[in-house]
């Protein structure tokens, strides 16, 4: 089926404002969800589910959160790792303090607590912008990690500083954490969080909330003249963004790695997620997923490539080659399209509408 919108007439504003106004996009998304929910768990093995898809969704959520703040509201942040840690440790404290509490509620509560912490560290954004704000959020990053390493209460006084997710199930007996958890359940659980939160994010950014954020990003003076309050708009972006990042952190600690220490969320993590949204596309929901896929999947792919090709090279050489090719690919992608993979995708779709005619 060709990607054409000929003959699809939208006769009401409601139809024009639909999330996927073009029929092919609707079918495409439906097909993607069917594949993600049914085909992938049926066909993929345990390795694919737990070490590729689950971290991909977790990183996508974190990238989505940062993209709301940096891509849509224009506030540069380097505190992503710290906020993930807040989500992880809050979820751990809540899950161990209230063993009867549903794991979904634990995660949502962890997100809300992270949102409040994000709100607090977002206050300087009224006065400082750009790189200076990034430096201010670095303070959040270092302070939060220091807090979770030094204060043993957060780790329930574990001598190693490592927190381990207690076994929890959804709908009674489908364990998603703990030793009995099945990879497929973990996969569905993480996928559902990613899908629901991505839909919510898409709705926010295409509505009045998103317009406020983008107005502040593009021209804060004009936004103020229209009646947008800069501080509350920026703080809302910090809160919503941190909510997403907090849930990503909780998913990381509970579902992906099952046990984690605070240093897993250090400054490297913040940069990694920032690179995801830059490569994926700032101000794009799709871009958050594409960027996460690029950063997570490409190294794994490069690592396995020599074996797949039947080449026998040493492990050290593979690692070095991987870094070299990975770096070169990042640079060439950014030169080809500075606005990220999402922009490449959009341009491709625009070309496809006219294909096979060039104009």
């Amino acid at each position, binding site marked *: 089926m060709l990607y054409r919108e000929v003959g699809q007439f939208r006769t*009401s*504003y*409601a139809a*024009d*404002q639909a*999330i996927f106004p073009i029929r092919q996009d609707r079918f495409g998304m439906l097909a993607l969800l069917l594949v993600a929910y049914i085909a992938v768990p049926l066909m993929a093995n345990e390795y694919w589910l737990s070490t590729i898809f689950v971290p991909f969704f977790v990183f996508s959520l974190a990238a989505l959160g940062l993209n709301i703040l940096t891509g849509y509201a224009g506030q540069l942040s380097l505190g992503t790792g710290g906020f993930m840690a807040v989500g992880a440790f809050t979820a751990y404290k809540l899950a161990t303090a209230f063993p009867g509490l549903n794991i979904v509620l634990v995660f949502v509560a962890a997100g809300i607590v992270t949102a409040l912490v994000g709100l607090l560290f977002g206050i300087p954004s009224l006065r400082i912008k750009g790189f200076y704000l990034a430096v201010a959020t670095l303070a959040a990053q270092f302070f939060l990690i220091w807090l979770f390493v030094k204060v043993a209460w957060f780790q329930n006084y574990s001598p190693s500083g490592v927190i381990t997710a207690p076994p929890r199930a959804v709908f009674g007996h489908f364990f998603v954490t703990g030793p009995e958890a099945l990879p497929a359940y973990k996969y569905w659980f993480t996928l559902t969080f990613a899908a629901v939160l991505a839909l*919510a*994010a898409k*709705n*926010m950014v295409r*509505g*009045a*909330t*998103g*317009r*406020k954020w*983008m*107005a502040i*990003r*593009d*021209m804060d*003076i*004009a*936004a*103020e*003249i*229209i*009646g*947008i*309050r800069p501080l509350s708009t920026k703080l*809302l972006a910090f809160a*919503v963004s941190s909510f997403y990042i907090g849930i990503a952190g909780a998913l990381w600690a509970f579902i992906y790695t099952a046990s984690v220490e605070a240093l897993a969320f250090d400054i490297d993590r913040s940069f990694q997620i920032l690179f995801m949204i830059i490569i994926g596309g700032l*101000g794009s929901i799709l871009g958050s997923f594409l960027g996460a896929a690029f950063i997570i999947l490409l190294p794994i792919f490069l690592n396995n490539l020599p074996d797949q090709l039947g080449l026998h090279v040493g492990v050290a050489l593979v690692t070095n080659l991987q870094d070299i090719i990975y770096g070169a690919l990042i640079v060439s992608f950014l030169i080809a399209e500075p606005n990220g993979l999402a922009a490449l995708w959009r341009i491709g779709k625009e070309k496809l509408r006219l294909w096979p005619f060039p104009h």
Partner: protein
Amino acid sequence: MHSNGGVLLKVEGIALAFGGVKALADVSFDIRKGEVRAIIGPNGAGKSSMLNVINGFYRPHAGSITYKGRTVRHMRPHQAAKAGIARTFQNIALFKGMTTLDNIMTGRLLKMRGNFLLDALYVGPARREETAHRAVVEQIIDFLEIQAIRKVPVGRLPYGLQKRVELGRALAAEPDLLLLDEPMAGMNFEEKEDMSRFILDVNEEFGTTIALIEHDMGVVMDISSRIVVLDYGRKIADGTPDEVRRDQAVIDAYLGVAHDGGKGA
């Protein structure tokens, strides 16, 4: 131009200085309901500063602003917006990454009651509100004849159209007072004619009071009901186009005069 005599906005004794530079000194004038009021003057006369004082961007050091019968020293920009003052900028201040439609929709934010949770769910009220406001915005798009660029990011539009979108965004707020800072700067004759027609239509069809800064004297004399003339931060004349045209101080300010007590002129 159906000024009914009531005063909408009155500024009295406004003074503003940046460090040692006096941008405005003891400026007083009023704007009547329904009129097109022009503010003119040579470069650096303080015209834009005056608009910035009116909509709360600058805080004057002295003087008062009476708007709709309420007298204050200073309104914050979002308070001014709530009170029905909208404006456009000399250097276009559009949201470059957003489409024409989104830019104008942004102008209606103050009239929208939703919150981010309703937006996230996109159910009931959020969806109805979005559609209702879209209908109003589409009327503005029709009015300004920019249907074709509805979904184009404004950063890609030519200058003249950007000016028009910015006017649309200001109109979307359904303002009582519309401040236009050089709406025709950098336009060719035809574009100026179009813009003049839009301004007069806004004034006549919606009854919006307009205060504009403009350098094209032909346009100013044609479309405005009364004119304030500023020079070096002071008001030097105030009256109808005919009165201002004949005013000796205005002629001196524009043509230049030797500042030695007038003897050398």
